[in-house]
């Protein structure tokens, strides 16, 4: 069951935050800040999911392949591990949708909500990649490295899709949708 972190952050507001909500002019800032916080928490969870369920099995696969001296597989594995690390760092340190006092593009509450839902939609893709990575590790553990190669190819194309999708995020943040 997926918990909406925006509700959780709202429920956990302390006294100071509640007072801030009552101050005219500060209320909007507080609300947007809470969505940003919920989005940051969500991205942290996504990055952890990618780290534990995709990157870790891939590294275990590499370890199995290196014990079996599978030289032909090593470069493919290195490439896919590198893709996983890049994706994890991108998610963890992604832009949160901050703007200045009088910005060129104002980011409103609705856009921040879109951003949150956008990040939430990534979870299915990451879980799919996790299943493939685990299957690759099972094959490597069983010594059938041909099937590992096949799965790695699928993971690589999955990461390529992910990169394209995640790069659209900045367009969503700006809310301009020019491309």
């Amino acid at each position: 069951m997926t918990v909406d972190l925006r509700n959780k952050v709202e429920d956990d507001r302390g006294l100071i935050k509640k007072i801030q909500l009552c101050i005219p002019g500060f209320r909007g800032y507080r609300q947007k800040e809470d969505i940003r916080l919920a989005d940051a928490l969500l991205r942290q969870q996504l990055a952890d999911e990618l780290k534990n369920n995709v990157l870790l099995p891939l590294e275990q696969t590499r370890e199995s392949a290196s014990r079996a001296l599978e030289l032909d597989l090593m470069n493919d594995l290195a490439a896919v591990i590198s893709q996983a690390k890049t994706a994890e760092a991108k998610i963890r340190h992604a832009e949160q949708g901050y703007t200045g006092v009088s910005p060129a593009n104002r980011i409103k509450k609705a856009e921040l909500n879109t951003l949150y839902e956008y990040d939430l939609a990534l979870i299915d893709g990451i879980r799919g990649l996790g299943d493939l990575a685990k299957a690759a590790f099972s094959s490597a553990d069983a010594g059938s490295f041909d099937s590992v190669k096949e799965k790695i190819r699928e993971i690589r194309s999955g990461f390529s899709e992910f990169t394209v999708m995640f790069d659209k995020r900045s367009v969503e943040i700006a809310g301009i949708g020019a491309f």
Partner: protein
Amino acid sequence: MGLFSKTNKTIGSGSDIEGADSRKGFYWVEDQKGENVMWRLPRNIMWNDNVLVREDEYGIFFRDGKALVVFDRPDRYALTTENIPVLKSILGTVAGNVQIGEFYWAQKREFRDKFGTPQPLAFRDVDFGVVQLRIFGQFSYKIVDPLLLITQFVGTKGLTKSEEIVEWLKSQVIMVLNDTLGELKSKKQMGVLDMPAYLQEIEQLCLGKLTTETEIYGLKIMRFAGLNINMPEEVQEAINKRGAMSALGVNYIQYQSGKAIEGIGQGAAQGGEGSGFAMMGAGMGAGMSMGGMMTQSMAGGGGQPAPFGGQQAATPQTAAVPQAPAPQTAAPKQAEPMDKCNNCGAEFSAGKKFCPDCGQKMTPAGSLTCAKCGTALSPGAKFCPECGTKVETVRRCPRCDSVVPAGTKFCPECGQKL
């Protein structure tokens, strides 16, 4: 105003941490960061002290010797102990002890360093036998679990600099590399000459194996760069020579003679004393060469081919004393096969390498000669080294001059051995 200015001075100033009494916001001060992998706050944490953890840092909070929490997200944290600043000394007096809170920071970023074998590694190679290998390169590592690093590696020794960690990691890298190369040799028959083609794969093999070695200490080797597997200079030189000989299509003696002649030319070009020595060397070389040719011509067709530089081992008969002419025997001499010099036309017994009259190099039967100047060509040569004429690939029989297909050992027309 005075109150605010005092507050602003203390908050966030890391330089006067030692001995400070008032509550502060602490952060990892810049002059203590650099290449340090971790840093302990040099005073104990008290109730509701604020600590800043940045994007590239972990924060670890210990209370009464127990690690309570690792902060891996950037934020400002208010830490909880029971040591309230004002009541601390009163509580200490009444309760008899004071709670101790400690705070450590550890870096998240990757550190880079170099590794290399302190002594060459003995490696049994398929081509060269036992060779001494030197391996060096760069690697990067990072802390993946600061709590494990403190509890399993650094401990309470206060080792915060990266030197000791790096030394340990280097020894692990060398050990795993040595192990991997040995396995590749024994299971995949990989020789020293194959290794440069598989450097990336070797790096990845080592990374895979190193993960389990280092992760128990909260460390991880992230990548290798510039891995270099070298042989000693003399072996490398021998390999280079072998390659050059193969490219030129010459044997060792021809190669060495060529190098010697090249050296003489360079010495003569330099002039001065070098020129004198070079000319002397040239003279000696020429003398030895002439001597070799003369010995060869005197020895006749029955002499054994010379083992080095065309010189022949002196036999007791020819060594010092001139021998008296042998008595003529009555038995008729068997007709000797004869050769003719292409240059001067002199006839002499077959089997000689140089013409005894003019010194022209003799061409063995069936070998290629230049169509223009008649110079003997080395196998595989595309141009004549004398006149530069392009070598015809068509072979002709030296006896009947008919065209002979490549690779044939006898002439299809006259049966001459080629």
